[in-house]
């Protein structure tokens, strides 16, 4: 078996077995063998993680498996990215996303799953954490040159703070610069429309699809 094929197979297997160490080892081997690293990212890691996402959506695998698969992918891609950096190359990202749970809300899990799945699907994701004032979210979006601001809220009391973020963006004249995506248990499309958010997603898988559609042709 030629080197490339064997190494891609090892990468794929590391994702399917949720094994970060194996992902790093395969990535290092790809670098040492002088493979086309952009192809390695796509074939070795991106395709298998997308398949994992599909399996999750079909309810064949469970959330911890998806999360750990994504962790393995991240560990492997980090190795490839460092090598690419040194050679002046760059991995295509669909878009840059800052994501967080709004002020007053300490719910972490749903937001983290969305971040994981977006990352697994080719987005550069900056997870800002929980209980975030509007000003901090916008500062982070600016400093990361984000394309997307994704806002989570689990409580019907705190979803009001999603509106604060949109209003503050409007007041600062920054609204058109970002695609604002909202989600969380009490959040609906009607709420997204009411506060002037650009998109709404029911769940993590939906978030990927909504953003894929919105970001078409915006790869950078």
């Amino acid at each position, binding site marked *: 078996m030629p080197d490339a094929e064997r190494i891609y197979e090892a990468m794929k297997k590391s994702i399917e077995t949720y094994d970060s160490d194996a992902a790093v080892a395969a990535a290092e081997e790809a670098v040492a063998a002088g493979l086309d690293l952009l192809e390695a990212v796509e074939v070795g890691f991106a395709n298998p993680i997308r398949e994992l996402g599909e399996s999750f959506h079909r309810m064949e695998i469970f*959330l*911890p498996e998806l999360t750990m698969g994504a962790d393995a992918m991240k560990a492997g891609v980090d190795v490839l990215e460092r090598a690419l950096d040194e050679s002046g190359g760059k991995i295509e990202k669909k878009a840059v996303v800052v994501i967080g749970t709004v002020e007053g809300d*300490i719910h972490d*899990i749903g937001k983290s799953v969305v971040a994981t799945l977006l990352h697994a699907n080719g987005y550069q994701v900056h997870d800002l954490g929980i209980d975030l004032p509007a000003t901090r979210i916008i500062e982070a979006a600016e400093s990361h040159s984000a394309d997307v601001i994704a806002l989570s809220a689990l409580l019907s009391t705190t979803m009001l703070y999603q509106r604060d973020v949109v209003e503050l963006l409007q007041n600062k004249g920054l609204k058109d610069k970002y695609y604002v995506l909202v989600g969380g*248990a*009490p959040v609906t499309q009607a709420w997204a429309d009411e506060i002037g958010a650009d998109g709404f997603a029911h*769940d993590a898988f939906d978030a990927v699809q909504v953003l894929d559609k919105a970001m078409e042709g915006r790869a950078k």
Partner: protein
Amino acid sequence: MRFQPTLKVLSDEQIERIHQAALEMLMNPGVLVKSEEARDLLKQAGADIDEETMICRIPGNIVMEAMKSAPSSFTVHARNPENDVHVSTSDVHIEPMIGRINCYDYASGEARPTTLEDVGHLIRIADAMPNYHLLHSGAIMPQIEGIPIRATHAYGYLESVRNSTKPVKATSRERVMAEDCLRMVAAVAGGEEELKKRPCTFTTDNPVAPLHHDRDQVEGALLYAEYGIPIDVTSEPQAGATAPVTIAGLLAQQTADVISGITILQLKNPGNPVWYGTCGSVMDMRVGRIAIGAIEMGLINVASAQMAHFYDVPCRGTASATDSKELDFQAGYEKTAVMTMAVLGGVNKIFYPGTMEGALTISKEGLVLDNEIAGAIYRVLDGIDVVDDTLGVELARTVGPGGHYLSQRHTMQFIRKEHFMPLLADRLIRERWEEAGRKNMVAKAHETVVRILDEHEVEPLPEKTEAELKRIVREVEEREEKQS
């Protein structure tokens, strides 16, 4: 002597191991306590506090002393003393859900935002249902359609307390909301001193799993403890997400959450009535959401009752909930299975009847349906009375071989006590059922809802009290308007 039907899922040795694991967790990693007052209380008691990280390491002797000061029985008073609830480690009471963000609409089959009118109707239905004792209320709702959001608790409490004479729950979610609610409860009780003597409300203090006591929540709960008001301290861990995926790990961590929470309250007011509470379940790892109709909740409820009784405090559990979006087979199966386990497991206050859709939605028909499930399970709890009279040896001689028991006084005498008579479940033959309109349980529950709202009368609040409550609601609304 009557044999009490009981269900146990833990051996004494397993209870001890879970208890020890919880104590270990309270020392390392400790609990995050964001309320300064709570940290001070723990510090004075001798716990090790890191003020920078707000992590408190609480030695077992402090926890056990606090648990000992918590009573094993107490009374939650009601506007009508006949509805007072005597809580103990051996009684089972039921707290239906009232306030959810959405309300199920029978005609359309859809969930829509809950209005203040819904709150009043839901409470009135719960007031009319014999198996409901302690009522959740509109005061706990994060939002009521059409009501200014920061005044929700005040509007919600008023609309609730005027529609029932059973004990009505108030919120401790934030200090200021707790203060508003307690002023209103005091008005109903006849003053602050009366409220302390006859606490006629109760509340919930929710630690945030894992091992975290939020500031707003604890500050609110500490205020309730000043008045000696009963508080269920309830952790809501999800196995695999906010707790270990194993049920044993969930129970250990939940116990650490709850007994540290109770410790804080007992340090504030030794002897304050509390429940050891669980709303623990599993996260469904296919959809990433809590599964609130999961059968594992049955195990967790029973184990929690065993843990609570190990500490000699009553247990609050969570049952009669479902993930179904309809009042269908899934709802009936999930509600009945977990509810049966919780009741037989000796959970002393069972919360969540009336809910559906992962407890995002409340249903008027659901309150009526779940009351019937509760009635059936109470019958099981009553067990089998085995004495001369019930064995009926003499009676068998009277009837004789080949006879029947229909015309015996004994049958008439015991029928109501021995047999549960469902009001909604259908037992007619097909022809009679068709003549009666082919109605299923849900349709009959809806008829009951319509009838109750038409006929059930609740003793109104005294005029003076109603006026005072309305004044407080206005005051809260004006204060919040100014602040926004």
